């Protein structure tokens, strides 16, 4: 332990603690733009400099470790002058169209400029004028707003191990870009959107579908249906004035009706459907002795990652479509039939926590209904913007349910949004399939929580089913390398591209705070506890869709509408 003084106050912290973290103990927040908890510090922004007595220059407090007796000052004129000037320098090189920037409520640069009292940008000069990278169907990069903090590079490289973006060019022309400037759409980008979550400014954003959805809603010839992923209800409130950790399923359904959607359903329903298919697939693989472990397929970020980096594992990946796409192919078949609407009239919209789902919806094979199964994908943030634009007082809305036919859901469906949720939901149903009995201890704690890799063994009659859960692609790699080496002890593996699972998806309210993602996950586990049905196979609407339409899991119709195949995309 080292004792030092910061602004005259003593604090004792373990050896190796950074000055910035030591200051936190004293409730002193040292401003910074490139440092972010959860990423290795890289001290690019130079804003976190502090004075240390006896040193000629300011020290970057994000990386400088404390030492015994150190005397630090974080609020001197010299420190404030440096911070302000650096913010001015960043602003003058930044295409600061704040009024129309999506990040103007969450921009760290704007916030800092305000908090540090930058009254005037004293420099004037040329602004960057790079071309935008719009090659990806999911994500747009605007280098003109980039402040070169390197967070996206670090999250893509260190956390996701995808490494498709990096610094290119030297010196003043330095820029974040892809291999040979090919653009995100032409490299191995998984569209996970974690780079959006870490970007302090508006340099990375989703490719918006808001205008298209408004247009569909305004078109009287169209019948617009909507589905919302599990994770939306755990986070949408954060964008609309409610505290983190608020379940807003009811308000969300109400708001969607008020926006003018003709039918408000719920992806949680198709999450239950996914479980029916996926659990049956698992049981089949185990009993028939075919390829194991089975790996979940509901995360399109992970799927694209697999198609680039682990195509040899295609036989291990469940053939089930994601809940979004299962919903999509049923909306224009099953629902169209039931409601007596010509499918070409239906516009199928989904609200997802996810940028990868935008990519998934436009995959060429996602047309099994005979039409584009999902027409438009909105992120949580985009939906929030529409709600604001419509002037809806979200916090004051009453609660409504989604329409029963494809909107009733079980607790198993709702926990899909948290890491481990798919695994837990599948086990609840697989147990029933194999034993004919219900799993007694329905909460499978070992697969919950925020550890990067979680494992458990579940006794299903005489069989010990071994399962593993990984979230964040860096963690996934560890499990996948075992599978590749033929050394994986598991029967079933869940992989989610985003740390924390979909509650931490690239389309969620901006944050890279794993603890917040845990709080959102808890919202879903809490909802699971109080729902009337907690197992997918108990959901009456699921029973009905099989009875009336699909007949049986893994049956012919299911095969056609609910299952898919993957492509070896190779490396760039």
């Amino acid at each position: 332990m080292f004792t030092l003084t910061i602004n005259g106050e003593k604090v004792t912290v373990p050896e190796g603690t950074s000055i910035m973290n030591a200051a936190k103990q004293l409730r002193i927040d040292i401003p910074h733009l490139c440092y972010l908890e959860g990423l290795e510090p890289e001290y690019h922004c130079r804003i976190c400099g502090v004075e240390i007595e006896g040193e000629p220059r300011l020290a970057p407090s994000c990386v400088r470790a404390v030492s015994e007796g150190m005397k630090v000052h974080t609020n001197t004129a010299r420190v404030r002058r440096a911070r302000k000037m650096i913010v001015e320098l960043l602003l003058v090189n930044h295409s600061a169209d704040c009024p129309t920037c999506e990040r103007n409520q969450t921009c760290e640069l704007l916030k800092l400029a305000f908090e540090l009292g930058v009254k005037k940008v004293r420099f004037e000069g040329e602004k960057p004028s790079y071309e935008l990278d719009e090659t990806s169907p999911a994500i747009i990069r605007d280098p003109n707003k980039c402040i070169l903090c390197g967070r996206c590079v670090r999250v893509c490289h260190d956390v996701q191990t995808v490494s498709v973006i990096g610094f290119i060019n030297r010196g003043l022309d330095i820029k974040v870009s892809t291999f040979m400037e090919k653009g995100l759409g032409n490299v191995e980008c998984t569209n996970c959107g974690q780079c959006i979550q870490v970007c302090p400014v508006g340099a990375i954003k989703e490719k918006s579908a808001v205008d298209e959805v408004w247009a569909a809603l305004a078109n009287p010839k169209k019948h617009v249906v909507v589905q919302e992923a599990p994770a939306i209800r755990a986070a949408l409130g954060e964008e609309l004035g409610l505290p983190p950790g608020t379940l807003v399923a009811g308000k969300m359904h109400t708001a969607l009706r008020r926006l003018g959607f003709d039918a408000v359903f719920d992806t949680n329903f198709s999450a239950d459907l996914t479980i029916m298919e996926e659990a049956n697939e698992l049981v089949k693989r185990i009993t028939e002795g075919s390829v194991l472990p089975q790996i979940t397929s509901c995360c399109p970020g992970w799927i694209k990652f697999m198609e680039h980096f682990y195509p040899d594992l295609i036989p291990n990946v469940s053939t089930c479509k994601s809940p979004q796409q299962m919903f999509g192919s049923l909306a224009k078949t099953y629902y169209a039939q039931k409601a007596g609407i010509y499918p070409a009239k239906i516009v199928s919209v989904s609200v997802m926590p996810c940028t990868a789902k935008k990519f998934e919806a436009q995959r060429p094979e996602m047309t099994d209904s005979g039409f584009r199964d999902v027409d438009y994908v909105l992120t949580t943030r985009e939906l929030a913007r529409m709600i604001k634009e419509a002037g809806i007082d979200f916090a004051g809305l009453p609660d409504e349910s989604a329409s029963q036919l494809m909107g009733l859901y079980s607790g198993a469906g709702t926990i899909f949004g948290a890491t481990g949720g798919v695994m837990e939901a599948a086990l609840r149903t697989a147990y029933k399939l194999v034993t004919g009995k219900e799993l007694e201890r329905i909460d499978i704690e070992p697969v919950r929580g925020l550890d990067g890799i979680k494992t458990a063994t579940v006794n299903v009659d005489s069989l010990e089913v071994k399962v593993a859960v990984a979230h964040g692609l860096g963690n996934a790699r560890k499990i996948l390398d075992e599978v590749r080496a033929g050394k994986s002890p598991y029967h079933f593996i869940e992989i989610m591209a985003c740390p924390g699972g979909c509650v931490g998806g690239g389309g969620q309210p901006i944050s890279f705070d794993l603890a917040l993602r845990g709080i959102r996950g808890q919202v879903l586990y809490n909802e699971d506890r109080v729902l009337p049905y907690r197992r997918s196979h108990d959901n009456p609407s699921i029973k009905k869709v099989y009875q009336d339409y699909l007949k049986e899991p893994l049956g012919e119709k299911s095969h056609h509408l609910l299952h898919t195949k993957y492509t070896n995309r190779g490396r760039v």
Partner: protein
Amino acid sequence: MEKILTKNIDKPNSQDIEVYLADGGYKALEKVLTLKPEEVIDEVKKSRLVGRGGAAFPVGLKWSFTSKEDGEPKFIVCNADEGEPGTFKDRVILRNDPHLLLEAIIIGGYAIGTSHGYIYVRGEYYPEIEVLEKAIKQAKEKGYLGNNILRSGFSFNIQLYKGAGSYVCGEETALLESMEGNRGSPDCRPPFPAQSGFLGKPTAVNNVETLANIPAIIINGGNWYSKIGSPGSPGPKLFCLSGQVNKPGVYELPTGIPLRELIENYGGGVRGEFKAVLPGGVSSSLLTDLDVKLDYKSIAKAGSMLGSGAVIVINSDTSMIDVAKNTIDFFAHESCGKCSVCREGTRRAREIITRFANGGGRAEELDLLLELGEVMYDTACCGLGQVAMSATTSAIKLFRDEFEQKVRE
């Protein structure tokens, strides 16, 4: 003064090991191999030799830190990247007396306890690279390099690295990054290379000229050396005299020699009328006092730095705006772009100075530049950004009227 660093350079075939051996070459190494590494370091400490690469850090201290750090293997790296405008002193040694350098590196390796030496040579120094390659081969043949040197049990090898071609790669942490095959961008200190350097191991990085002093210190003793030149930073120094003088060139002179003597007795006097000098190259602040003594302390006291000893003389025909423009152009071009403050600071400073050069400056921008210089000194990660504004801000301070004449009406 008797030449120490350049005593061999004018001999015919000076690169040849036979010529080097004929005049006591490798005797220092022979002596070192009979000493304990600590004794070698003590001798260097006694000499009070400080680094000639720019930062003027005591060599004995650097070696003793490196030798005491945990972590194996250790490395010694000779910095021969020499990329600063007006600096061409290391080249003289590299080209003409390679064995002096090799002998010094081997001694340094012995002192810090490593068998691994590297020379990071500026990529454009093709002839020098050839000379070094040949010298390494000869030294191996004669048993001064390789396994079990002179049957002492000590083994040592030297490998060459060719520089990646940018000025900032001469900064020691960027140099090590570049040796590891990464982008040559500086790292934050601490940790210093002595703690965590090449491949994360304790590494002593020393400049060519710094090392060239070592054999003489071993042969004649640290005490002898410490009496040469200025007591604070003794020894001979290679001054690279350039700019508006009649005889530009590299001059070996004791530290502490007055600037006037260097220019008048060696450089053939100023071409035109003396106006100012950059005593440590483009990284240093302008001085106008011809009587300043050329040693690290005196120059620092006068408000500048000796750096690597690139003395650039400026005459009265030269506009200070041009001086500012040339230096800031250089740094804006050479900034690695990693730190916001250096990247954006040099970018804006260059724009402002360019506007002044074109007669379109704003009066308040002069103080803005002074503030920028202080903030960059305070916050930039490496030496490049810290000193990028020195010449410019000193030009404004000393010759403000020249800038004010260029303020936009």
